[in-house]
């Protein structure tokens, strides 16, 4: 198995002046406020911040699931904010993977069918070797013929990770992937995510509330009130907690957030 490969093909995920405003008039909420941020390929980044700070919104815009009010987001050379629905669908199918908090596997399909679904939708051939690698790395060999209802939460999430990786996407977005798991399964899933970055050369951006989960990442981006509020490299649970504490003080005395510099 190869180690620490940074594939040259994948591009940087980046946002420039990315803004999202929900609603109109008095009920208007600025979920993202001119966010500039870069995520380097081959890295595992965690996004953290208080509830309602705009983490999920940022992820949706970066992944082209929702449209921005202004600003741009891109994956490599592709300007996501400029694409139409079909192009976005194509992009999600081939260049982006998703891992959801509630797994979102299709109940009528087996684990194997669920994993291969993105290829199936695109009518693409299965890379047998890659599939075998994923199954082995994620420890799913025994479970391929089972349906989601017959799998534990942790196993379901591993299937979901395999599904996200099967197309060798440029980037995998994970929104609270351990939110519905107990701490042991959660730790398992997180180490799989880390292995897919270290060993399989993938890029992962994960939203989480849990400082322990964030510590699995190479880097933590802190977000507060729709703005980038901090950046921690090689985080440990302690440094993440300290960063979050700092945010709380920031919140009480609003200061222009330090833009999260595009670091590689």
């Amino acid at each position, binding site marked *: 198995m190869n180690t620490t490969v940074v594939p040259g093909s994948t591009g940087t995920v980046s946002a420039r002046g990315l803004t999202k405003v929900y609603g109109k008039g008095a009920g208007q909420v600025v979920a993202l406020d001119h966010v500039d941020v870069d995520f380097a390929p081959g890295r595992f980044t965690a996004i953290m911040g208080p509830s309602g700070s705009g983490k999920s919104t940022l992820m949706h815009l970066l992944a082209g699931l929702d449209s921005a009010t202004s600003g741009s987001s891109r994956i490599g050379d592709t300007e996501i904010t400029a694409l139409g629905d079909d192009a976005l669908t194509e992009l999600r199918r081939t260049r982006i993977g998703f891992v959801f*908090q509630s797994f979102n596997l299709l109940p009528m399909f087996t684990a194997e069918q669920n994993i291969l679904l993105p290829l199936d939708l695109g009518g693409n051939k299965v890379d047998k070797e890659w599939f075998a690698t994923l199954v082995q790395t994620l420890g799913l060999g025994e479970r391929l013929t089972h349906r989601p209802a017959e799998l534990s939460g942790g196993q379901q999430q591993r299937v979901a990770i395999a599904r996200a990786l099967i197309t060798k996407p440029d980037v995998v977005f994970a929104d609270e992937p351990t939110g*519905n798991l107990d701490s042991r399964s959660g730790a398992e899933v997180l180490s799989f995510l880390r292995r897919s970055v270290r060993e399989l050369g993938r890029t992962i951006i994960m939203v989480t509330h849990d400082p322990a989960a964030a510590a699995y990442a190479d880097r933590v981006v802190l977000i507060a009130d729709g703005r980038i509020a901090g950046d921690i490299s090689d985080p440990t649970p302690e440094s993440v907690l300290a960063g979050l504490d700092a945010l709380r003080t920031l919140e009480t005395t609003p200061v222009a957030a330090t833009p999260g510099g595009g670091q590689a």
Partner: protein
Amino acid sequence: MFRLTFAQMRKSVGKLVSAGIAIAIGTAFVAATLLAGNIMTSTSTDSVAATLADADAHLDLGGTVGLAPEAITSLDATAGVAVVSPQVQTYINVRRGEREVGTLAVSAAAEPRLEAQKLTSGAWPAATNEVALPAAVAERLGATVSGTVDIVGYTFDEAKGESEETTTTVTVTGLLDDPSGAYVSFDGALVGQVDDVLAWNGGSLVTSALVTLDAGADPATVLPALADAARAELVAAGTSDEDAAQVRALTKQQYADERIAQLSGDTNTVMYVVLAFGALALVVAGLVIANTFQVLVAQRTRTLALLRCVGATKKQLRASVLLEAGVLGTLASLTGILVGAIGVQALLAVLGTRDLGVPLPQTIEVTPAVVLVPLIAGVVVTVLAAFAPARGATRVAPLAALRPADAPSVRGGSKARLLLAVVLTVVGGAMLAGGIAVANAGEEPRPEIGLLLGIPGGALSFVGLIVGSVFWIPAVAAGIGALLSRTGASARLASANTLRNPRRTAATSTALLIGVTLVAMMSTGAASARATFNDQLDSHFAVDVLVEASGSSDGSGNLDTVREKVAAVPGVAATVPVTSTYVDKIELTLPDGPVPLGSTEVSGIDPTAARTVLHDPRKIDGLEDGVLLVDSSRELHLAATGAVVTRADGTTLDLRVKVITGGLGTHMVTATTMKQIAPDATASTLFVRLDSDNPVRTVDDIRTQVQDLGAWVTGAVAERAMFEQVINVLLAVVVGLLAVAVVIALIGVTNTLSLSVLERQRENATLRAIGLSRKQLRSTLAIEGLLIAIVGTLLGVVLGLVYGWSGAATVLGSFGDVSYAVPWRDIALALVVSVVAGLLASVLPARRAVRTSPVEALAVD
């Protein structure tokens, strides 16, 4: 609980509305049928009452021999009675020149105000041998006022012991109109003097009279007195007391009510048959409702469990679901009744502008039954349909509130259901098979017993198949789905989705299957009947029309003229002359020596021309010059090696022989050979082939053309056309009625798809997030709709064929060989409709589905 029920209903309004439409269509159908029945009844009541015109009462001497007209008239001596006007009716024919029309003749009343019809010109008949004619009859006869017509009646000749035709020439004094529809079934009635009408039917006594009372007279005292007076007259004339007791004097209303009671038996039968179709539509609607509630309950599992957690009893939950069904049933039924009523009223308005000869009421008459029957039926069906889902609601464990809400898993059927289904199907199938066997039992076919066995057998096995549909329909759907799955990811998703909930898929397909099976059965049965009778007509009548000149082989002089005239009639495609003659003797040469043939008639025809007129050219297979085509089924004749024909003058001619079974019924030779057999014989018969749209009319035209020439026309084609027309009309009516059930079932498909979309909102969003395009999502749903519709239709067609053929075998078996026809056109139509409907059914749900943003997949509920 009420508040909760209504709050939940408000949340599910969309689903409830589409389920409500199904019920509303059913109840609209029932309400419209009842309203139409009322209109039929009131129309006939009016028409019966109209025969009494302005009379106050009716005197009925039925059951007695009757009294002479004068005796009846003099009954006006009874206190309070103004006029007693004898009433006589008889069926007669009216002739003028060549034309003859059958009609009803009624006696003229004592006063014009007692006449049911109105005079449009001329005067009422005032003397013997004067009549007033209905305008329509006069027109057909070409009769005018002051002209004469002949009345053709029949009198019974005691001496000879048989009826004899009598002809009386009468003068037309006036023309009549029948605005109140008193004699609507006859285009009005001819009016003549009482004595004349009596004479035409050879009688002299009257058993019926119209009565008017003095102003202020009380019918309750006057009428019994009148009846007594009539009885006294009868007894005086020699009638027994017992017979005389049957005399009755009824008020106009009593009389009309009584007559209607007799007449409406038929009306009611028609209405009950139509109502049976309405019941069927409601059953199908019930399936749609049951589906809807199943999903509603499944989706509310969390709410229901939460309610259980906070202390709601099972009974309360069940009551809540049933209450919801009751409210839905009531609202939908009322809507349906309103729609039905508006529909019939609109129809009345349209028909009112046409002249149908029947005075239709202006407005519908809404009786309690019109509202109550569909309302109760609709509510009962809805509540019954919700019963199983309501029980499901009570099974929700309070714990379910604490578990994450996953898509509800739905069980297949129970063992008991499987057993019931198998028993019903097997027993019903056996009865059906037994019915066919009895109806076709070689020596003594008993089709009536076959039907007695077969109809309940067929119904039972069909119920069995429907009860068991949850087991076998998903299997069929899986098979078809597997085939479709090869076409791509959308189809794979669709077929996997279809199989997720076998019960719902089965119920949706079954709703469609019921309608389609019945439609296919009817059309298969009709097609088989048509084919069977056609085959038989073909073998009995080889040609469309046969024209025989002068009825003898000698009237040949004018066949060419006849042929010319016939060929000129529009709709005639070809005519071929046939020459027939009787020879002295025909002997077949057999290995054991010559054998004479029973019939010595030989007919000659040109074989090439013959093929243009014969329906089945095989009937002259092997006919060529020098060959005698022998039509025989006797084994003995098959070995014939030749034939010797002895001509009338005693000379003989050797011919080759070809024996054929089921030929033209006579020995055939070619026209050329005929010349050798009988050089002087000329053609006397014409074979005619038609290519007319209206063969009945064409045959009539031919008849008119050649009548004067003394030719005789027989047209099997006319019989066939009439027969086909009857079958086609019946079929169209039945299929039209069944179509309602099919429409409801198709609504069910849309309903099921919308429910699936709602249920799978998160799944669809996930799929969108991982790369399912909008187009793919749309086609997934379209294929799902298609699959459900196709399965129901295909299975319906197959079952319909089986039942249709079984029916044909039972009913037609005793007539001879049954032709099992496949109504391809109707089957193709059913498939096309179901494919289109399946695809269309997905349009609205798909629109909703693609609108959902993938972001929702990420939302945690």
